């Protein structure tokens, strides 16, 4: 079994020239965690995820204070919003490099790559490099586990 058998084929993507605000709007309306960024040939050039967007709102101290358990009330931070200037930046400034597998990639190889790169969704591309699907950890995991019942 390969990754193309379990991936989602109706992929929502965004162009690299779009703004952060537009990316957030698509993520909200489609209720998804990851948005592939593609060029005009539908080839992936990066990804922008929920985490990249939420980092814009997360307070600075979270990355410096090792243990924030003692902070029971984030106070002013809870109502902080990114500035209009930040939201109007292009997604290019925020996106992470795209890690992809080809459609005939095996399930365990795809899963191992996701573990190593700490990904929740894997982009699947055709032989000519075009984005054709996205497989989540759950998609791949369910496909792998489904064979267990047959033993």
């Amino acid at each position, binding site marked *: 079994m390969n990754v193309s058998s379990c991936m989602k084929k109706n992929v929502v993507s965004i162009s690299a020239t779009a703004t952060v605000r537009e990316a957030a709007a698509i993520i909200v309306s489609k209720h998804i965690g990851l948005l592939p960024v593609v060029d005009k040939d539908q080839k992936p050039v990066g990804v922008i995820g929920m985490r990249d967007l939420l980092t814009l709102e997360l*307070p*600075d101290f979270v990355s410096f204070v090792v243990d924030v358990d003692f902070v029971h009330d984030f106070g*002013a931070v809870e109502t902080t919003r990114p500035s209009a200037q930040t939201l109007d930046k292009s997604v290019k400034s925020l996106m992470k490099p795209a890690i992809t597998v080809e459609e005939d990639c095996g399930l365990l190889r795809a899963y191992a790559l996701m573990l190593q790169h700490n990904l929740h969704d894997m982009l699947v591309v055709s032989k000519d490099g075009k984005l054709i699907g996205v497989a989540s950890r759950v998609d791949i995991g369910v496909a792998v586990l489904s064979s267990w019942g047959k033993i």
Partner: protein
Amino acid sequence: MILPAVLAIIIFFGSLVIIFSEKLHRSITAIAGGALMVIVGRILNFYSEEAALEAIDFNTLGLLLGMMLLVAMLEPTGFFQYLAVLAARASKGKPVRLFVLLSVVTTILAMFLDNVTTVVIIAPVTLLICEIIGISPLPFLMSEALLSNTGGVATLIGDPPNVLIGSAAGFSFNDFLVHSLPIVLFAWAGALFLLLHLFKKDLSIHPRSVKAVMQLNPAETLNEPLVARRILIVLAGAILFFFIHHALHVSPSLVALSAAAMALVWVRPELDDLFKRIEWSVLIFFASLFVMVGGLEAAGVLEAVTGLMERVSSIPPLLFGVALIWIVAVLSAVVDNVPITIALIPVIRGLGASGMEVDPLWWALAFGAGFGGSGTIIGATANIIVVSLSEKTRTPITSKIWNRRGLPVMLATCSIASILYAILYSTF
């Protein structure tokens, strides 16, 4: 004797130039320079390996290592965060009060502990406190670096240049409390008022969420209360012995190392973790600089300098002292103050050998090296730490911002020190 002297000067000043240019890590440069000095010394027969070992001031290294071990053990207990959170609650979220309290806590810690470690630990908590109450952390971070630098000059153990000067001049812990502390108190208060004035606009902003700071529970920041208590008891004992070390004829390094040994036995920390928090590169840097200066001495350079100094000693001593404060301060603002201090120690010794009363000059050196660091971002390690932390936040400290606040602080503290120095000169 000309060739050894010329080569020793080339090796020493060549190393200093490389250190100041930051082309190579300062510890790597110092090791290479120290090794080269000994090799050349052996070839030309002016510097033996035994002499190189003797040139290392183990009193300085022992004191630094002992205090580093104590701080490294105290760091993971959460004690520093505990104090910062206490200060934040006591301020009730009022910016000016928070500013003063955090500055006082940082300064007191920096007077007895390594101020770099202090700032490394206090700065992130400061960021946290400022963010949750909704004010800019920038004034707080800058003042913590500036005031801990200033306050560190007050004690023998507050600042590496002081450790060096104390060891070279034979000043005791109490000598610093009598000669340095009073002047530092005035300079520190002057710096605090100046900073309150310079940051008036930032500090007059009404915080959006005072409630959040009152929700912080100091007790929860203490990860290991028992360990913290033990180390604090040992530290208090060490400070007590610092007060009487001179009367007991015990060196400060023995006090610090004994305290560290006692804490190690009592707490038995995980050693791999502990040793990662010790700044070995600083200790190696010091030791290597000592080896190089020893080479200068063996090559007869310092004798020649002393000869030159005899002419200098015709300058009125008071004027000489005040000039020394400013010259060292300007140098310390642009380069690391440790090599400056190490290089000037033999010069002052030379002046002493030529018959000049040098005790006042040692204090001038301490004030210049300590207060000069405020002037620029690169003037002190604590400055570099808060600036590089702020660069990863939404409110980075630029050199323009620093120069508008740090430079006035340097000028004010040096001026206050110069005036008081001139008035009190006869008592030094």
